[in-house]
């Protein structure tokens, strides 16, 4: 029986919804023990939410005599200590910006194999499935180490509830920060934004959006769906959107349940970042636009006509 640790991520103290897919993935590995590990937020507050998706234990991690939020290396070392302490067979987590970093630090520190940004995990076979060649292929990778480290692409695995009674625990690791990297400051630029890489719905505007201001039209629609707005590189390069909004090869990799592309030609590089979305909708004036060959639903039309109507219809029907 395997013991699987899950590194939980929080935002403003709340457990992010994307963690629940990771818990679901862990549950699919036979009847092991699932331990949720928390380095930020409060385990007490998260206990109910995590229990609902099958966590049997929720552990608040800390480092002896140090503040975890000051150093990523300290976090990695604390996790390493927890892996030893709980004799974990695997540690799963999110391949968010922070997750990718912490898992890579941990893997390097412990000299263990890591699959970053994976789409599926099979602990019995010790394999993972992940994107290769920028989304053009899927690779099956065999993990040969003693402990499997897997950072899972947010939303890649659907969350399914399976209530368990989660026990509470805390673990203080005696670890030391090498002290070579210091967090100087963290600035939150836009407070109410939904994180693009973890959004369940994304509405993206390409080059024809024509101005930064016009993204408001998409934003109104995205907000109704609880989603975020994205941009193509052409739109970012033209100065209509910040790079943080760029989806694709040189931007973010996303996997929402619904991706609505407005005025996107359907370039390989853009698709590299959103190909694994569950449902892709395209709105484009050109009936021959390549994107219509690679999406699920298409509307031929001007985004400035179609999106406002979409917003209106959503207001009526949701």
């Amino acid at each position, binding site marked *: 029986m395997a013991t699987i640790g899950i590194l939980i991520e929080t935002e403003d103290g709340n457990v992010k919804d994307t963690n629940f897919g990771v818990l679901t993935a862990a549950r699919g590995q036979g009847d092991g023990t699932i331990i949720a590990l928390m380095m930020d937020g409060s385990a007490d507050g998260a206990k109910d939410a995590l229990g609902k998706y099958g966590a049997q234990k929720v552990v608040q991690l800390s480092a002896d005599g140090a503040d975890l939020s000051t150093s990523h290396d300290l976090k990695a070392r604390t996790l390493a200590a927890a892996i030893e302490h709980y004799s974990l067979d695997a540690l799963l987590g999110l391949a968010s910006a922070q997750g990718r970093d912490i898992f890579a630090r941990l893997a390097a520190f412990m000299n263990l194999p890591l699959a*970053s940004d994976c789409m599926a995990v099979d602990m019995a076979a010790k394999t993972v499935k992940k994107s290769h*060649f920028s989304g053009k292929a899927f690779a099956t990778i065999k993990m040969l180490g003693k402990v499997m480290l897997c950072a899972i692409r947010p939303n890649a695995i659907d969350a399914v509830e399976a209530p368990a009674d989660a026990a509470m625990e805390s673990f203080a690791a005696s670890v030391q920060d090498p002290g070579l990297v210091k967090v*100087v400051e963290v600035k939150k630029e836009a407070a109410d934004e939904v994180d693009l890489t973890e959004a369940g719905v994304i509405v993206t505007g390409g080059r024809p959006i024509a101005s930064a201001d016009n993204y408001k039209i998409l934003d109104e629609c995205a907000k109704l769906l609880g989603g975020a707005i994205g941009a193509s590189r052409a739109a970012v390069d033209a100065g209509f959107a910040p790079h943080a909004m760029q989806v694709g090869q040189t931007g973010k990799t996303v996997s929402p349940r619904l991706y609505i592309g407005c005025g996107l030609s359907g370039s390989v590089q853009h698709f590299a970042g959103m190909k694994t979305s569950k449902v892709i909708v395209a709105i484009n004036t050109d009936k021959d636009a390549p994107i219509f060959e690679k999406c699920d639903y298409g509307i031929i039309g001007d985004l400035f006509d179609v999106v406002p109507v979409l917003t209106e219809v959503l207001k009526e029907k949701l």
Partner: protein
Amino acid sequence: MQIYVCVKHVPDTAANIKIVGENGFDDAGCKFIANPYDEYAVEQAVQLVEKNGGEVIVVTVGKAVAAATIRAAMAMGAHRGILITVDSQFLDSQTTAQALKVAIEQDGKPDIIFTGKGAVDSEGFQTLYRLAAGMNLPVVNEINKMELGEGKATVGHEIGGGAREVLDVSLPCVLGTTKGLNEPRYPKFPDIMKAKKKEIKQITIADLGISVDGAQSELEKLEKTPDRSGAKMLEGDVRQAVEELVNILKEEEKVI
């Protein structure tokens, strides 16, 4: 300053990849380029040396043809190159990191080692962390801002949710670069010609005393991602098409 830049030779992002056998691809039939993220690394290194003096050394692990990528970095201003040759198409990140480490340590004393934030072919996102751990150096990835200070670099990157983080990293260090850090230059013809005369030292991975058999992960299988077969087009006037779409998303796909 002595700055090393690790650059990977990868299939062009626009290339059609033909999978061969269980876990290989037709690399002879496909155009290769320098990994796009690594171009920010080369540019940053060249700018720092232009300002502070020193040299930029490109280090690549790959097949012999990867020399073309080193030449491309040289045309951007890198001074020398080291090519560590392997026979296989894919090497696990720990072995790659070890090869980079040994080659760099044998060559000199880095003030900074730059890499791209990740490679667009294997998408592993970890080699630079393993390189840093092996050399006992601090590491920060995905930087899009950097200022050099006294014995340290102050770097910035996005951490998701619209938040940015600023960090102080002591030198020497390993830094992974991404878009936004700079604008990689387009080499001019004379630079391309000059690059042809620069020195590339070629060594095999075995010469570095590294075995490729100790891999921690193996690529078992490659398969093409299933393509969508083309969209269901929603017809009628805008209102009709949108209503049908919303109905489908709600009732059939259940995604809203």
